[in-house]
């Protein structure tokens, strides 16, 4: 099929960007979205132009590297009820010949642009460094079965831990809030007995770091939940807010 791609091109964060149109004449419906971009890049290279820079790696929806806003939607996934996919898993049979597809990077203050469709998500790493871990050194663990954990808790923890850290939640949010990511990360730890010792300090520190990175606040639009390729629930945000209030009442201040 034939497609027109309207792609965001920007040399780096110090220069102005613009949308640029490219035509593709022979896109296979069986190719994945990123393979379609590969095709375009091959064409651009052969024509002596610079290919489009975009992030991608595993191409099976788990590494969280790919990050495209397609026709205004993070991971382009609201096509014919296709949900819960990363853009690397979306295939071209979901598009129609003759369509114009607009490709943009994640746009958020917390994610400065590096080039074309690539942004810097280092802020997410720094939020984890603020407290998204259990402080247990290698070698000091008791036998794994010494601490029974109700299956339900383990399952909720896993629901939250499924987050791939792609940043679609931020890209989808009108406020560019990172609360779904941050709450999922602490939610997976806070639902386990191992995570209780540091629970309230963790919430205070991670939320503080999240604010310092320039992410916005949550106004319950739920766009993040809709865009999340791993279907992380808004419940984790509610839980985080509850824990934050408790921590505040306990008088716990940030240590980051």
């Amino acid at each position: 099929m034939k497609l027109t791609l309207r792609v965001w091109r920007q040399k780096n964060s110090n220069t102005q960007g613009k949308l640029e149109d490219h035509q593709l004449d022979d896109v296979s419906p069986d190719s994945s979205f990123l393979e379609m971009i590969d095709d375009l890049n091959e064409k651009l290279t052969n024509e002596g132009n610079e290919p489009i820079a975009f992030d991608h790696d595993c191409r099976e929806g788990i590494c969280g590297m790919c990050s495209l806003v397609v026709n205004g939607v993070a991971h382009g996934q609201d096509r014919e009820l296709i949900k819960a996919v990363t853009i690397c898993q979306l295939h071209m049979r979901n598009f129609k010949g003759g369509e114009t597809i607009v490709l943009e990077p994640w746009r958020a203050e917390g994610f400065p642009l590096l080039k074309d469709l690539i942004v810097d998500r280092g802020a997410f790493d720094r939020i984890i460094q603020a407290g998204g871990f259990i402080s247990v050194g290698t070698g000091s663990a008791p036998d794994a079965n010494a601490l029974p954990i109700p299956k339900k808790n383990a399952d909720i923890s896993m629901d939250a831990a499924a987050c791939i850290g792609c940043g679609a939640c931020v890209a989808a949010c009108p406020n560019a809030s990172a609360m779904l990511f941050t709450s999922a990360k602490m939610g997976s730890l806070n639902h386990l007995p191992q995570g209780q010792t540091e629970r309230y300090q963790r919430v205070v520190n991670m939320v503080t770091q999240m604010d310092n990175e320039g992410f916005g606040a949550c106004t319950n639009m739920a766009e993040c939940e809709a865009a999340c390729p791993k279907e992380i629930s808004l419940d984790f945000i509610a839980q985080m807010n509850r824990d934050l209030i408790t921590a505040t009442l306990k008088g716990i201040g940030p240590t980051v």
Partner: protein
Amino acid sequence: MKNIIDQIKVVEGSLNSAVPEGPIQDIWDNHRFNMKLVNPANKRKFNVIMVGSGLAGGAAAATMGELGYNVQCFFYQDSARRAHSVAAQGGINAAKNYQNDGDSIFRLFYDTVKGGDYRSREANVYRLAQVSNNIIDQCAAQGVPFAREYGGALDNRSFGGAQVSRTFYARGQTGQQLLLGAYQALSRQAAAGTVKLFPRTEILDIIVIDEQARGVVTRNMVTGEIKSYLADAVVLATGGYGNLYYLSTNAMGCNVTASWRAYKRGAFFANPCYVQIHPTCIPPAGEHQSKLTLMSESLRNDGRIWVPRNAGDNRKANDIPESDRYYYLEEKYPSFGNLVPRDVASRNAKTVVDEGHGVGELKNGVYLDFSESIGRLGAHIIKERYGNLFDMYTSITGEDPYKVPMRIYPAIHYSMGGTWVDYNLQSTIPGLFSIGEANFSDHGANRLGASALMQGLADGYFVIPYTMGNYLAQASLKKVDTNHPAVKEAEAAVNEKTKKLMSINGKRSVSSFHRELGRVIWDNVGMARTDAGLRKALKRIPEIRAEFWENVRVPGSAADLNQSLEMAGRVADFLEFGEVMALDALYRAESCGGHFREESQTEEGEALRDDENFAYVSAWEYAGEGKTPILNKEPLTFEYVKLTQRSYK
């Protein structure tokens, strides 16, 4: 060409595996006592470079940071959490025997040596089985949400044909969850300042000074800056080389560059011909295909594999009557049927497809049919077991496996070969270590399911922190700075290579060369290898390489984020590495594990080992540009495991 084997210089007795003497169950304990320790106050005076942030590299960097060393961790992704360990689905083995079904450290050890078709080092594998239990404890303490029973205890399953249930898992995302555990530990050390992270940074050379590994030359993938970092030791945790095949289940960025640079600086490369081919992947859909997606092996528990009995039968799957269906695994292996090991399932799929029985538009797959189990158990049970896999299949192929059979075909999945290391995981360059998939040590010629995660974490959490200390405590390390001639020479070589790649300005893209190389390797150094095919590859690879250096086009600038340049450097290294791999496969004129030489098979078509002539590790030594590499042999002896012929009839 005939005499290429005669040109190989063979050296015996050059490799010291450094395995301590003693009964196998005591070796590691005794060694831990005998190794030298670094005084706690002195640890912070040592700098260690970690290349890679996956299960092995992330775990090692975090643990060494906890111990007090200064660690610098480099990786090409934008976050340490994205290393390709993240994609492992199935699980992680450990000899806990929580299921009381007869497992033990010795059984895990035995199964791993046997599964590796007797081409691994016994002492290393035994240690792996020993520390497997500590891994599960550690990961549970970190908050890895392993699957649990209703009583709160950890759940286990049997995996990959094992007769005991020793596999721990976290839904279908075990690799992701274990990696997040390591990443969180790493993040904790980054916050504490013991580990410094270098995202989007690629290693382009290893710096060796006075025959010791002392640093790396890096390229900042955002700014293009070439910069050297020096340290007291370097660890390669760079994963496997499956991307040599172009199409594989590896991530797009996986590469052999750091290991290959180390090889050219003097680190021997062991058993490059051992790769694992996973039987249940989705076949390529056309020329645009960029990577292959694995479907969990567990599907073979309920799916039946078949092809049309008559070659060239173009009818749709559901129109082919039972009498015209060829259930080739069930017919050939009545006792194991569809559950034969990975290599056997893969080779048989290749045979039927090569004979013209392939299915799908491109005739490049075999059917994995669930209609019988859906009829017996009901669609809801199948959905409960494999729902997410079926959804993934539908999203990729546009077909509904509840109604028409899945199409599957084998794909490259894991590389057992890697940098040669001794018992301390140290390469032939003092101070250069290699851990996880990047080394060759534990899986022999074939890896068992759920053992990759185990090995990566064993090396990272529980082996390298000790053996590295032993090295640092004894090594005499001179003070060096970036003005040292060896640093300048390495930087100059990197700059010159980059300049050359940018200046060729030919007519073909980097990926077109990668595809061409991958095709040659897949056809000739893939699932079934022959003397003639390997010689063909050895002739063809240098031709492609020569054209690459004359006709590749790398657009853009080297002083910028340039993904074409990144790929060009990696493909240039694959173009050299592929040749050594083909040479290794040619020299090893036996079949073992994932390495199947058609000339060496049993009457039933199984891999036939030649223990008399090939019970050794092939460690290839760089002999200089354009020269045939030197083959160093490390003999393998088996005191605890009896060598047998595998049979799955």
